[in-house]
């Protein structure tokens, strides 16, 4: 197969360029990551992040033939012979396929991503019904790969002001947790023309999420909570 890989090393390149690599696949190569690893075996200067190779760590998110996804769970059989791999859009490139995710994590950190409960902790676990626990399904599974936020035009324009789909999905994960007591504080934190309301339900996030999560739906629920508390 032919891989076109975005290359840029600030140490020596004046500007980025695309570089083609012919990779010979065999029966063991299932996923795009296998092909990238093979390309790197031929040319060790290609730089990208990867770790778990099974879609749970969130390291190897790239823009693959124009769409964000994880290389390790993108099947080669479902890709054409020629594949173009670029870094995630909208974030500064450090080198080749490696982007600077500072802004992305800053937004995640800004939503107070932890359960807040000021009651003295009981001796055993806090109780939660299976139904209440189910509310967290589709939220807690996020792997922070940034496929969603970097496919979102609102995040591209305002990465410093708009929390973005990944951060908002997690904001709702804690709003939805019956053990959390900081609902008002959390909603105050998002009550702003940009932080939440820059979501225009374009739904690119839902389209690209490799874990099949739905940030748009979560954002809608936060907006509902905002409306309900204002009436």
């Amino acid at each position: 197969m032919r891989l076109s890989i975005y290359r840029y090393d600030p140490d020596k390149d004046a500007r980025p360029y695309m570089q083609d690599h012919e990779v010979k696949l065999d029966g063991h190569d299932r996923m795009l990551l296998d092909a990238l690893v093979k390309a790197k075996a031929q040319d060790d200067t290609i730089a990208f992040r990867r770790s778990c190779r099974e879609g749970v760590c969130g390291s190897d998110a790239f823009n693959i033939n124009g769409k964000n996804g994880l290389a390790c769970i993108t099947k080669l059989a479902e890709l054409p012979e020629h594949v173009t791999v670029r870094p995630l859009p909208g974030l500064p490139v450090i080198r080749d396929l490696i982007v600077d995710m500072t802004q992305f994590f800053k937004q995640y950190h800004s939503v107070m991503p932890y359960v807040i409960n000021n009651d003295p902790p009981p001796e055993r676990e806090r109780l939660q019904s299976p139904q209440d626990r189910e509310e967290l399904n589709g939220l807690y599974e996020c792997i922070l790969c940034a496929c969603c936020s970097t496919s979102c035009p609102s995040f591209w324009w305002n990465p410093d002001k708009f929390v973005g789909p990944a951060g908002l999905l997690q904001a709702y994960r804690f709003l939805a947790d019956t053990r959390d007591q900081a609902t008002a504080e959390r909603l105050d934190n998002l009550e702003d023309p940009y932080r939440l309301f820059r979501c225009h339900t374009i739904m690119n996030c839902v389209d690209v999420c490799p874990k099949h999560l739905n940030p748009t739906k979560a954002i809608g629920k936060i907006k509902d909570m905002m409306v309900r508390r204002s009436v």
Partner: protein
Amino acid sequence: MSAPAIRKFDAIVVGAGGSGMRAALELARNNLKVAVLSKVFPTRSHTVAAQGGIAAPLANSTEDNWHWHMYDTVKGSDYLGDQDAIEYMCRRAIEVVVELEHMGMPFDRLENGKIYQRPFGGHTQAYGSPKMAMRSCAAADRTGHAMLHTLYQQNVRANTQFFVEWMALDLIRDPQDGAVIGVTALEMETGEVSIFQAKATLLATGGGGRIYQATTNAFINTGDGLGMAARAGLPLEDMEFWQFHPTGVAGAGVLITEGVRGEGGYLLNKNGERFMERYAPNAKDLASRDVVSRAMTTEIKEGRGCGEHADHLLLKLDHLGPEVINLRLPGIREIAIKFANVDPVRDPIPVVPTVHYQMGGVPTNYMGQVVAPEGNSKEAIVPGIYAAGECACVSVHGANRLGTNSLLDLVVFGKSSGEQMNKDINSMPRPQRNLPKGAGEQTLARLARLDSAKGGERVVDVLNDLRRTMQMHCGVFRFPDDLVSGVAKMKAIAERAARTYIQDKSKVFNTARIEALELENLVETAMSTAVSAEARKESRGAHTRSDHPERDDKSWMRHTLWYKEGNRLDYKPVHQRPLSVETFEPKVRTY
């Protein structure tokens, strides 16, 4: 290369997986200046891939207590585990799991609102009765993910200072007394080396399962802490013991949790026979992992494997029904569809025993303090250095780990290490020791060699040969000739690893350089494994030799210690005496 910058902290944690982040939380509570170094963003650490659960005798579904858990763990270890450390871990299990829940970890729930628990291999009621204990506290089949993210979130709240994508390279020891007083580390984005100086340094770097060709382990599991310890003259303990998980996806290596069998799934051979009934009449598919992996390998060797090449077995779970699968095993379904092209709601998953976990590691006591022979003591505390999690050998897993005890190990010993570090730092004089002359030179020399090499061995070639060698020579069943030739091959590979060459000379995020440095750590991990395995002339837990098929308590009820220098071996006794209860005497181990 310019002299490294020096950064001073009270404590350093190397690694941001489950144990490192649990320790960091403990240190944060003491208002210490702490640096957590990680070569990946914390939630990318391999703890994230743990699936089935974390053990604690909460007794939410079946009667249970720590004594039973302790018995199962001692038996599971094939009596090589240290019984003081095992008692310590089992007695703190409820406390640390309840803490995780209070931190917000999204455990599954029972109708009464308590944490959901499922059965797991080797976990029984009443000291090995045929009744299984429901002891594994689970968040669907994503328990590690739920735990790692929760610990990260708590560290965000505690304002922990992370150095993300900094790879620690070498320990710095004070030549006066051997105390560890810091580490060197490479900032991947800039290529700069710094010295991190501290009164206490914790290795929490995880395992080195990438020494095998077929592994459930992530790319990052390259035994970095083991390499650092070995190069600094510290021993590695019980490295011959590697767990083969019974159910890795055939061909892909990706893990399928034992929780599948905990929920009622089972293994079949090509005749559709539930063969585990023959090998473990009581526990069947929920026998210990070493037992199940040996049974599977035997089935394949005797021609009862499945598929065109008769090289795998089948894990059947469709009888659980789509509801249970979607609720309790959704991640497994996703993995099977992606990596095995089967939907387990209808079809069984092709599986083979696959390397999964390193029982050995840097020797510690149950407070995380690194211990090594010195003078008359086999276990003198090495000042300033601690280890926790998979890179440490406490030893609670002995010759074979029980499923769900690894996540427990991370939080119990992450916490106890943090507590001990707090205590030790508070009792030290305020000013830091002076760095010895030439601190960091070892690291700079390694990097300079790589940068100046104009030719040599390709990293990927040496790596592939290393992984193939370990797979062929140190597998589920081990043969004396293979073990001897494996050591010889590893020695040749180690020589080649010292002559590697990389094309990439960039300062900026040079992943070729990182992989070359990781290879050096993998070499120490693999060499210690090969040498220790060749020497142990018995079969115990995960170490099974064709020429010595029985356990030999008289000669081999002892821990191996391997030293890099001269591939020297030493041994030390097993702690058979627990803290407060009677010793569990070694018995024939059946399930």
